[in-house]
């Protein structure tokens, strides 16, 4: 029996990856279908030198991880729709103050309490625009446990590299199902450690003065540099400012640091796209059904392909445009009313070619569901 092969739930794959990436502080509040992440970390973190705390709600959880990140920790919280709603204000604070953190949202059916025990992908737009004000955000997703592992590690790396919250949008289906996970050896996946300032004690440290490469070296709270952190627009010292130039430059910086790197941040997988007449675009659990259809129909000579998105925000529009350019029709497969569909329409720029294959009744979309829509598009009936 190989030691690094596990048969686990998606939530556990996320936990293994977070620990692999160096997670050492987690705060959370129980909510289906994410609770296994908190349960597992309550045991694993103290055993590996980290800390776990169950807070009084999701607002407090989000705030606590931001505080812990400032002292130099890699931090994470995990929740689902209702809790993710509660986290939005503090998430915006992390955006504004540029504090690295990872937020897992195991999506379930909404709005409101919705359908807690069934999967959905209804929070795609909430991840983008859930907190108020102009900003940019990173959101990643995955369709299987190996990818959950890789995307979770990537989320920590991106959080540190760009000093930003990163949202992992998983869903109930992948989070609760069990399948093989091979845990990589240390060193197999690159890990990004926090960039700390080289400015020594007694020299003026400017917490919000970017280096030439645009990165902002951090100084751990409790260390030798004392500085101010605020959710107000702030200058290079972290002090509140209403100076138009300061305000303008900060919002530009917050947006541009991600939006100018859309292609570099774009993670995706492609299957049989070279000669595909019909391109399915999907992500998360829905991509499993889409891939099932593509592989099955390929056996029968049908030219289907799949573009599986792993980076949802910033939306990789150039990638989508390019991959869908030659398709007769593009079918977006997702578990919502068409949240990514709208983005694909904008990216491809030819809305008559774009169709939606979805399910919004709490039932996981089946290959048959997708096939029926494909046949309709092809003019072949169902």
């Amino acid at each position, binding site marked *: *029996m190989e030691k690094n*092969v*596990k*048969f686990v739930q998606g939530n556990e794959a996320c936990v293994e990856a977070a620990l692999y990436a160096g997670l050492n502080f987690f705060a959370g509040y129980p909510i*289906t*279908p994410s609770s296994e992440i908190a349960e597992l970390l309550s045991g694993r973190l103290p055993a590996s030198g980290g800390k776990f705390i169950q807070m009084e709600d999701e607002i407090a959880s989000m705030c606590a991880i931001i505080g812990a990140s400032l002292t130099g920790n890699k931090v994470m919280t995990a929740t689902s729709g209702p809790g993710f709603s509660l986290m939005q204000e503090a998430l915006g604070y992390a955006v504004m103050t540029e504090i690295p953190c990872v937020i897992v949202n195991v999506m379930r059916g909404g709005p409101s309490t919705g359908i*807690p*025990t*069934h999967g959905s992908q209804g929070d795609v737009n909430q991840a983008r625009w859930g907190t108020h004000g102009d900003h940019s955000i990173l959101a990643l997703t995955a369709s299987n446990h190996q990818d959950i592992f890789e995307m979770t590690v990537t989320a920590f790396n991106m959080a540190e590299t760009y000093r930003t919250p990163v949202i992992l949008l998983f869903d*109930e*289906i992948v989070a*609760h*199902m*069990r*399948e*093989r996970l091979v845990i990589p050896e240390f060193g197999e996946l690159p890990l990004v450690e926090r960039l700390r300032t080289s400015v020594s004690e007694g020299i003026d440290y400017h917490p919000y003065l970017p280096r030439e490469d645009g990165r902002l070296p951090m100084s751990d709270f409790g260390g030798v540099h004392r500085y101010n952190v605020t959710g107000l627009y702030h200058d290079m010292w972290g002090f509140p400012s209403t100076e138009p130039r300061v305000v303008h430059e900060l919002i530009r910086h917050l947006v541009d640091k991600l939006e100018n790197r859309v292609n570099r941040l774009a993670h995706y997988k492609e299957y049989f796209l070279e000669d595909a007449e019909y391109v399915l675009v999907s992500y998360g*659990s829905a991509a*499993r*059904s889409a*891939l*099932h259809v593509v*592989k099955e129909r390929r056996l029968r000579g049908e030219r289907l392909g799949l573009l599986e998105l792993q980076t949802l925000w910033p939306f990789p529009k150039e990638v989508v445009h390019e991959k869908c350019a030659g398709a007769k029709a593009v079918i977006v497969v997702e578990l919502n009313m068409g949240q990514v569909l709208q983005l694909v329409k904008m990216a491809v720029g030819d809305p008559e070619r774009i169709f939606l294959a979805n399910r919004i009744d709490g039932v*996981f979309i*089946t*290959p*048959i569901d997708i096939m029926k829509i494909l046949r309709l598009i092809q003019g072949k009936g169902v």
Partner: protein
Amino acid sequence: MERFRMVFSGSGGQGVVTAAIILAEAAVIIENLNAVQSQSYGAAARGGSTRSDVIIADSAIHYPKVIQPNFLVCLTQPAYNAYYPIIRPGGLLLTDQRFVNTEDKVDARQVELPMHSAVMEQIGKPIVFNICMLGVTISLTQVVQPESILKVLEERIPEGFLELNQKALNLGIEMGAAVKI
């Protein structure tokens, strides 16, 4: 190998989900096959109806649910009534005589066994009913080797309870072997 699509159903607390996980884990960890296990969730932790899907194959498994099982286990009457219509024609449907009265119209080979009473008579602990069922399952399907299940049990079960589980597994294997398929 053929692709095994299996559904285990019963009521919460019977250990159906645990049995499904053990089976799928044995396939993946010990036999290096691919397996996906999922379960339907409800708010009730005990007493509600429960269902777990397992797909075992030697190729990649993408769609993780089972629409038409070729092997179906129903350990309660409500589970039987709910799921017998989904079995693939010609598939195998396992029930326990104590809990389920079967119908003739089912287009499948139905195997009714007194698993619960055998466990009570020979072992005396209802807690290993699910492991006996698992023994019958692997005996009827040959989907994984008994040793693989044993290895997983050794990993998962406290030492003091291992023998109990081994007995239940063997009991199931014998009961399955006695069935003429």
